[in-house]
């Protein structure tokens, strides 16, 4: 037990989790923004935009995140020499955020589209009847209801995003939780089980409340029909 507690003096586990939370937070914001635009593309009347949205979703949903993040470091950072900050490690952190956002945007798009599917036909027809064209109808009538219907699937995307932030170690952010866990086990292989459960419980504590919250919110905010 003392051995176990001494681990926390040597390694800053909370700092590692904090990095995962930051990664997830920024990636979630960007993924939500990109995903909403993509969903608009996919339900828009313009064929080229529909096609673009569908192509984006099919490409990024079917590519392993590991490859996307490796590509972020090797492609964007190394070869294309994209720098997103003057400080090297900030730049790598932001590139990991971009990789996570780009990947999860495809799922956000699909979640919102499934939300759109919960909006009854009559709503769109009523919007058209009062003379709203596509963008106002989407902004005022369809999307507000669609977002409510999409809360549960969006919550699932957020949970997946938090867990997937561990893959950032494969890209370039080595200080996050999975990287630290690996280092800790390599140095203290006698404590492999307590170390694993520490990190696993950390994620349980992060993820389960989000699941409960989104389930509650999706019921609370559901459009009464």
């Amino acid at each position, binding site marked *: 037990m003392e051995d176990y507690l001494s681990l926390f003096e040597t390694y800053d586990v909370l700092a590692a989790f904090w990095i995962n939370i930051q990664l997830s937070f920024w990636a979630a914001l960007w993924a939500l923004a990109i995903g909403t635009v993509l969903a608009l593309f996919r339900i828009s009347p313009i064929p080229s935009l529909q096609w673009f949205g569908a192509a984006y979703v099919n490409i990024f949903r079917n590519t392993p995140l590991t490859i996307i993040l*490796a590509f972020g*470091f*090797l492609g964007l*950072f*190394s*070869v*294309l*020499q994209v*720098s997103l900050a003057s*400080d*090297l*490690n900030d730049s*790598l952190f932001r590139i990991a955020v971009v990789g996570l956002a780009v990947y999860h945007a495809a799922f956000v798009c699909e979640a919102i589209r499934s939300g759109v599917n919960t909006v009854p036909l009559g709503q769109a027809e009523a919007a058209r009847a009062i003379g709203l064209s596509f963008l106002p109808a989407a902004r005022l009538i369809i999307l507000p209801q669609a977002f409510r219907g999409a809360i549960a699937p969006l919550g699932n995307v957020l949970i997946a995003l938090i867990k997937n932030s561990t893959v950032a*170690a*494969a890209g*370039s952010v*080595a200080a996050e939780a999975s*990287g630290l866990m*690996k*280092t800790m086990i*390599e140095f203290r292989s006698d404590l492999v089980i307590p170390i694993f459960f520490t990190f696993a419980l950390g994620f349980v504590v992060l993820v389960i409340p989000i699941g409960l919250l989104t389930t509650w919110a999706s019921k609370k905010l559901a459009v009464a029909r």
Partner: protein
Amino acid sequence: MRKTRYAAAAVAAVAALTLSACGGGDSAESEGGGASGSADSLRIGIKFDQPGLGYDEGGSYSGFDVDVAKYVATELGVSEENIEFVEAPSANRENLLQNEQVDMIFATYSITDTRKETVDFAGPYFIAGQDLLVPTDSDITGPEDLEGKNLCSVTGSTSAQKIKDQYPGVQLVEQPGYAECVTAMGGGQIDAVTTDDIILAGLAAQESNAGKFKVVGNTFSEEKYGVGLPKGSDRCEDINAAITKMIDDKAWEEAITSNTEGADYTYNAELNPPTPEPCA
């Protein structure tokens, strides 16, 4: 035309594999097995992804570790075609030996007292030192020039951490492999890569990197590369004799030169070639 046909055949093969994958999971045969104890064949652990030392060329293996392994095996009476090379990633080396999955390991394996508790070592057959790889036109000559520069190494590597502790102004980037570091340095985003000098030389000697990088040649540690053996192995004396013979008949020198060609690298002549340490 021939090449297109190959490509077409390969695409067909992929399609076939994909189809069979949908068919279910009956293809799960386990590979590997116990190490063979017989003296006329050997299972040797090497790196598969370390160009210039141990590298899987696709069907054949190249590098300095591989050349030394082949020479030693021949001296032990095992011909080249009876050697089976097995991948020995750094994290697995002790386990591979303890479970006798391999007969010996040539994989940039430094002799240390901690490791000696669980495995035996023959050699050393090379003494490497931590060094820096920099672009050819760089003016970095040692770790003291790294202040404010971007340094890349492999995740969890102690060598990079040492520099970081000594020179806090260094920006350290950690990557899964040195290849990633070298790619980033090729793009100009990284100023230096650090690890053992011969590993750096092997990376710089790759065809695609030829002429782009140089090894600084200012080593600041001593890593004795040994031949890892299972505890209590009786092969140590024979291996040491083989290494000495390899050094004497210049095959050792040749192996280093041919594997680091184009890297602008010379090994530390004060320490090399080494004299094998007496066996335990």
